[in-house]
């Protein structure tokens, strides 16, 4: 079979890009990583994702796939002989997809809401939302893991990837606000899971170090503070 051409357009700080990288790692797929520069978009990115102009984009034999969770499912289905990323049972798949959608639609906005919150009250409200989300996810973890290490069972799977990609930024938020958001006392399952996830072979090389990410966060927030207000 001819050698496949696989490119991933992304950036090291992006949790969404990390999802794609973890999926590719699980399947032991070799790929070319194209690092996009902060503040500019490459021609290849603009051509491959004209609708959103966002990373990650997976380009497989010149065919682009966009949207991180869609990429993860694509990788699982296109390389079906490797370890499975989604569960095999349709109901378990539906549960995994449900919680991944919850993470993207509700939980992650509460985390990024914390970064944007101005003033003590707003920050506290945002933190409460993040923690409430974790309580729901703790329950989900109990049901999905069935006593094993990961949402996916013995190995990391779709839902582990969907949530775990945010652990770097979560730790940055905790550090910058001087608080604990993922509390082992309140959500012991998730706390244990988080450490195991970060130590997983498919994850550890693509999870940014908290210090490096914190430095990046400072640069990012400074750039946003200095930028002119976005035109509407």
């Amino acid at each position, binding site marked *: 079979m001819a050698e496949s051409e696989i490119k991933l357009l992304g950036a090291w700080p992006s949790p969404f890009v990390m999802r794609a990288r973890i999926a590719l790692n699980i399947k032991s797929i070799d790929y070319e990583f194209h690092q996009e520069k902060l503040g500019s978009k490459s021609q290849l990115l603009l051509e491959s994702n004209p*609708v959103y102009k966002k990373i990650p984009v997976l380009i*497989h034999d010149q*065919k682009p*796939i*966009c*949207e991180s969770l*869609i*990429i993860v*499912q*694509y990788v699982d*289905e*296109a390389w079906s002989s490797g370890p499975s990323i989604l569960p095999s049972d*349709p*109901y378990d*798949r*539906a*549960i995994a*997809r*449900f919680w991944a*959608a*919850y993470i993207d639609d509700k939980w992650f906005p509460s985390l990024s809401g914390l970064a944007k919150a101005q003033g003590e009250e707003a920050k506290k409200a945002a933190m409460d939302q993040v923690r409430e989300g974790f309580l*729901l996810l703790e329950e989900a973890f109990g049901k999905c893991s069935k006593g094993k290490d990961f949402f996916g069972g013995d190995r990391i799977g779709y839902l582990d990837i969907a949530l775990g990609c945010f652990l770097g930024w979560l730790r940055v938020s905790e550090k910058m606000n001087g608080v604990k958001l993922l509390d082992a006392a309140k959500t012991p399952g998730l706390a244990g899971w988080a450490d195991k996830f970060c130590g997983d072979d498919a994850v550890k090389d693509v999870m940014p170090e908290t210090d490096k990410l914190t430095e990046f966060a400072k640069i990012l927030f400074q750039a946003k503070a200095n930028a002119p207000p976005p035109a509407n």
Partner: protein
Amino acid sequence: MAEEVKLFGTWASPFSRRIEVALKLKGVQFEYIEENLSNKSPALLEYNPVHKKIPVLVHNGKPVAESLVILEYIDETWKHNPILPTDPYEKAIARFWAKYIDDKLWPAATKVLVSKGEEQKGVTEEIQEQLKTLESELKGKKFFGGESLGFVDIAANIIVFLLVAQEALGLMEILTEEQFPVLHEWYQRLVDDAVFKECVPPRERHLGFFKVRFGSSTASK
């Protein structure tokens, strides 16, 4: 064990109607439960405690929520008359466009009904851009799903709801044949489809629904 399929929905929700289309395309017998969203049933709250929303599909006692998640569950459980392609790349493209419809078209469609004046004009232009994008994706196929209705066509039922709303509120028609020849033709095919047309709200009642819900806040064209 006999198969038990229940759908919790509301007659005017495009998300709920999507599930009806999929179940009917597959010939799945189901019990439909109409919810009153201002007085949600204990069953709904039990089956969807996280969002407390419809639609919820309950299959042999096990609930599935979120319309696109439910559609994939239906396709994987009842495998005949598939609504998603089998090829992984084609499947990824279908998922992309269904998500685009929910992430972009739906918010714009709800906004256009409540906005006024310049803001409404702006959102209308946004929707036109989105329809243009969808039209170029259709690329001469009969349906987004190819020869027959698929995942994206079902998700695009939102367009039907938008057009009824616009008519009800006396807003400028958005999906004109002049501006969107390809999409307009697709739209006619969609609403004429034997299964799809059973799964849209009854027209007069639907027009009335929009007039009551949004009527007082609309601006003139």
